[in-house]
């Protein structure tokens, strides 16, 4: 329509409606995602306090960050939580999926039960597990009342193991998703593979370990990327379950950023910490994207 009005076809007005429809995407991608990221990275080199200022002080913020005890604990927690939750959610998720894949009855019921925590927010998850792990009323109190007086299980009140208390809640919420992805992957495996391995007399666990799992590599990779990018963001769960406590024992990077920006009016620190988070994600994403894109280009 636009080109007829113009008299001659113009590049800008060709396909105008489509361009208008894409304005929100273009703005989001360029202004918020690219612009916002660059803005934050640039301001991480300034001494912004209450308001963002362009007063550059080099790498001072990063130096302060890596000298801060709270940040080091955050990183350590993220590392422990991340590695363990990757391993456990992959193993448990895969095993549940394999069990559900045995042509069993009530498959839908079991799947519904395993997946429902995923529909709940991290806030709800954190608060429920805070209650269950409450030492005075929860698991510890119940076991003690059964006669085992010295039983101690109070992860949320013990600095050394608090991160495992959060891990329990995180796994409860997230393994259902992994199970679902794995189940979809298992369903994609050709039935003939199973028949062939049965004919050859290969035991079931060996078939899974050496044939099926290698075939499911793409599923594992996507799942890994999804869990990993979720782990870096973990914030609500900690806020609800422990508020970073006891002391600062369960702090995580995302919470460090929020606290620096909105509670202690230390914007520069917040920017530096969030830039470090970005770097962490890039370390995970870039090799994967490189492989993925490299392979695609190779094929196409």
């Amino acid at each position, binding site marked *: 329509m636009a080109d007829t009005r113009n008299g001659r076809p113009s590049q800008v007005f060709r396909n105008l*409606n489509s361009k208008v429809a894409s304005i929100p995407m273009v703005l*989001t991608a360029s202004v918020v*995602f690219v612009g916002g990221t660059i803005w934050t990275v640039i301001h991480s080199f300034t001494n912004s306090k209450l308001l963002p200022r362009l007063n550059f002080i080099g790498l001072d913020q990063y130096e302060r960050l890596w000298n801060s005890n709270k940040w080091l604990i955050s990183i350590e927690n993220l590392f422990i939580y991340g590695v363990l939750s990757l391993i456990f959610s992959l193993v448990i998720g895969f095993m549940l999926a394999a069990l559900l894949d045995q042509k069993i009855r009530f498959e839908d019921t079991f799947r*519904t039960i395993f997946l*429902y925590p995923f529909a709940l*927010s991290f806030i709800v998850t954190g608060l429920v597990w805070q209650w269950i792990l409450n030492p005075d*009323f929860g698991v510890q109190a119940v076991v003690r009342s059964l006669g085992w007086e010295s039983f101690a299980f109070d992860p949320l009140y013990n600095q050394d193991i608090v991160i495992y208390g959060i891990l329990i809640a995180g796994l409860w919420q997230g393994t259902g998703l992994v199970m679902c992805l794995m189940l979809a992957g298992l369903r994609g495996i050709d039935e003939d593979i199973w028949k062939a391995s049965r004919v050859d007399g290969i035991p079931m666990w060996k078939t899974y370990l050496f044939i099926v799992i290698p075939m499911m590599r793409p599923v594992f990779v996507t799942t890994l990327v999804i869990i990993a990018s979720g782990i870096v963001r973990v914030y609500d769960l900690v806020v609800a379950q422990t508020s970073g406590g006891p002391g600062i024992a369960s702090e995580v990077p995302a919470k460090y950023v929020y606290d620096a920006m909105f509670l202690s009016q230390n914007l520069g620190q917040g920017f530096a910490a969030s830039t470090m988070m970005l770097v962490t*994600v890039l370390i995970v994403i870039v090799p994967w994207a490189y492989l993925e894109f490299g392979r695609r280009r190779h094929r196409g």
Partner: protein
Amino acid sequence: MAEQGTLSAAGLGASRASASEAWGPRPRRALSRRNIIIYGTLTVVALYYLLPLYVMIVTSLKGMPEIRMGNIFSPPMEITFEPWVKAWATACTGLNCEGLSRGFWNSVRITVPSVIISILIASVNGYALANWRFRGADIFFTILIVGAFIPYQVMIYPIVIILREMGLYGTLTGLVMVHTIFGMPILTLLFRNYFASVPEELFKAARVDGAGFWAIYFKIMLPMSLPIFVVAVILQITGIWNDFLFGVVYTKPDVYPMTVQLNNIVNSVQGVKEYNVNMAATLLTGLVPLIVYFISGKLFVRGIAAGAVKG
């Protein structure tokens, strides 16, 4: 998929049986060792997954004296709905004692427009990307998808500034905008992939008949893609209702969404802890996504599978 599997297995068995008599694997007994292991494991795990929900319900129906005396797993001796009423109507956050109802209505006022606007924008956008490609579109789309992996913390403050400049910081409108922005990558991908799978002949035929961008969208694409819209709605309702970070960053206390208010009620340091009220409040907050989940069933699974293929 499950039905398919059993169907083909049954068909196979039937044809074998008719071919000769003693053929094929020995019929399995229902109580074989294998079955006991499988069902046993699944049942134990299922109980573990159900436990928190059970504890929430049981605790929210007890009075405080009973909670102090008994253990958290025992069913209530006297069922009381007092905690539910209190959580909904009179629980306190700071000086404000209106209960969770305010947070509930705030969440409704945030979720409904966010879901509608984000899906409208993303569906039209996905349609443009699938059927009306223009130069440079793919670059922005790639940025959008890659951007989905950037931690929100990196973009939080620039958005604060943008909203402040627009005079929307601390308002519901601002939060709706934020949800629209961060819902865009996954929704656009979802719709783009769906529209790309619609047969091109349909699109070409409509073009020959003189239909333009919007006519094809409203008359052909929209009616054909209702299932994907339902998937998107499920994805967005649960996602936005469960959000905490954006709510706490971009709104002020009187428009806090339910999750933020819940956290403030339960984790407030003042006053005596009323665990039954806390659990009733927690359940109330989880109720909306739970209802969506149990009603939607397989569509929910499809939604997360769609979310899973991003990247």
